[in-house]
């Protein structure tokens, strides 16, 4: 079982039956709503909704097991924002009475010298919401690939036309193949990890120079074998006449159903409502959101 397992799995769920385009819309809706809010509670609601969709698709929990790594990203955001948040400078119309609340100091009081490096609650909260955005997007993204048969995805992409232009099949192929290879590379990674550990490489520890050295023992074999299998793949493709100048046909046809209309309309309404809520009424937006001048 590879660590990162986002390969399509067969199941007859509502989500599986939807048209790939509807699912792409879902991803976009998640991006829009996650970007609209930065209040942790609102983002938590978005995440809950995504979990609901994953449950509807009957995706086994173990497929999301690797997401524990996100904990580090969230922690990183919380701490860095907690420390540096105030240096954003411009926070828009904040009440004059407003005061930063210090949670704790990274440099303890009893330790001699040094600036005490305060961690600001508002910053940590903002960092937390940034982390939750990453969580939301990372949770939502695999749903498309897990529930859509790769050839349906290819089919859908090849149907997109803008005027007479369409996405070149080579590009579509690269895109869908990349997804197909994520679990393979992940498995390769696990096997290399085993092989190196078996001869005494210890992963982990605190010496950064040593860790980088140790990582080369992982990345070199994985990269080399990826390149070699890419080479094998090109040979296999050519023996099957890849690039032959004919109109491609597909065994699977994907159909746009009534449910797709309903879901699409629903998603658009949700996304628009969320945007209006956040932009016009400031709902789900922290009062001390940093203002960025573009």
């Amino acid at each position, binding site marked *: *079982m590879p660590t990162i397992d986002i390969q399509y799995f067969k199941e007859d769920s509502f989500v599986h039956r939807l048209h790939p385009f509807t699912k792409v819309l879902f991803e976009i809706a998640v991006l829009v709503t996650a970007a609209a809010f930065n209040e942790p509670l609102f983002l938590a609601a978005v995440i809950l909704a995504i979990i609901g969709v994953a449950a509807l698709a009957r995706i*086994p929990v*173990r497929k999301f*097991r690797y997401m524990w790594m996100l904990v580090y990203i969230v922690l990183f955001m919380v701490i860095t924002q907690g420390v540096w948040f105030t240096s954003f400078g411009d926070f828009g119309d904040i009440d004059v009475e407003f005061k930063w609340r210090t949670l704790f100091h990274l440099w303890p009081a009893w330790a001699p010298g040094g600036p005490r490096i305060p961690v600001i609650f508002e910053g940590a909260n903002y960092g937390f919401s940034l982390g939750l955005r990453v969580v939301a997007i990372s949770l939502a993204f695999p749903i498309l690939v897990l529930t859509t048969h790769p050839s349906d995805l290819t089919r859908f992409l090849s149907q997109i036309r803008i005027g007479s232009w369409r996405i070149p099949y080579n590009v579509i192929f690269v895109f869908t193949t990349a997804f197909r290879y994520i679990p393979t590379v992940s498995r*390769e990674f696990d*096997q*290399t990890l*085993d*092989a*190196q*550990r*078996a*001869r*005494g*490489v*210890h992963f982990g520890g605190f010496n950064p120079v040593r860790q980088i050295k140790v990582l*080369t*023992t992982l990345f*070199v*074999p994985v990269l*080399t*074998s990826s390149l*070699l299998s890419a080479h094998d793949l090109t040979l296999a493709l050519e023996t099957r006449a890849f690039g032959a100048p004919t109109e491609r046909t597909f065994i699977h046809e994907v159909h746009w159903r009534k449910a797709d209309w309903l879901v699409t309309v629903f998603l658009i309404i949700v996304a628009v409502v969320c945007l209006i809520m956040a932009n016009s009424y400031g709902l789900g937006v922290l009062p001390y959101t940093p203002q960025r001048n573009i």
Partner: protein
Amino acid sequence: MKSEAIITTRDLSYSYPGGVAALSGVSLEILSGEFIAIIGSNGSGKTTLAKHFNGLLKPSQGHVIVDGLDTRTTRVSELSRIVGFVFQNPDHQIFGYSVWEEASFGLKLQRVDEESIEQQTTDALRAVALDGLRDRHPRALSRGQRQRLATASILALETPVLVLDEPTTGQDFISRRQIMELTVDLHAEGRTVIMVTHDMSLVAEYASRVIVMQDGKVLGDSPPKEAFEREEILMSTGLELPPVIRIARGLREYGFSDTPLTQAELVENLITAIRR
């Protein structure tokens, strides 16, 4: 002389994340100096069992004791000094820019002194007949040579126990012979050899003990002769008998009741039977 158990598994069970049970209730005692073959069909739990011997996998239930150390609480890097594990695919481990670097890497990790690194690596490369290629880039080697290089990188560690995961799969006849001769030499030096394999002829010829796995359980554990006599067990695992034994089976109706393990043994027994 009574040998001591170097690896003990007690009621070992293992499930892969996601709940697939791969081993259940495996209790074994592997004695120092044994030559063990673990056989079984694909997916029977052979490799999963072997990966417990150096702590790559930790038991879901039960214990694995390696030279007095519980694998649950011991680092793999620590266990790698006792159990050397040669993987099936050398390309999962080769990263060095020269044969020498690759083969000596494990020793450098163990902070062995320069002289011993030189000595042990040279010995290991000589054992796999790669000593003339020490400055060659590993990618410039053939697949068979890379397999031998991976083996050498483990041999250099001079571990008392060696686990070989399907060492002869995908090798031609000559490389197969070379690998087996090497293994026999290592065994003769007093190392404990554990071999996971499908290659029944090799099992018959070299192993001193055969462990038959099926569906994560130990189905049989005996010297090869007895293992091959219990045909029904081997049949149920879908394994084929070695040619020598199949010939002997065919001779049964003519009153030949032996289970020879090697060609020489078959010939000898046949001749005595004919002369009698």
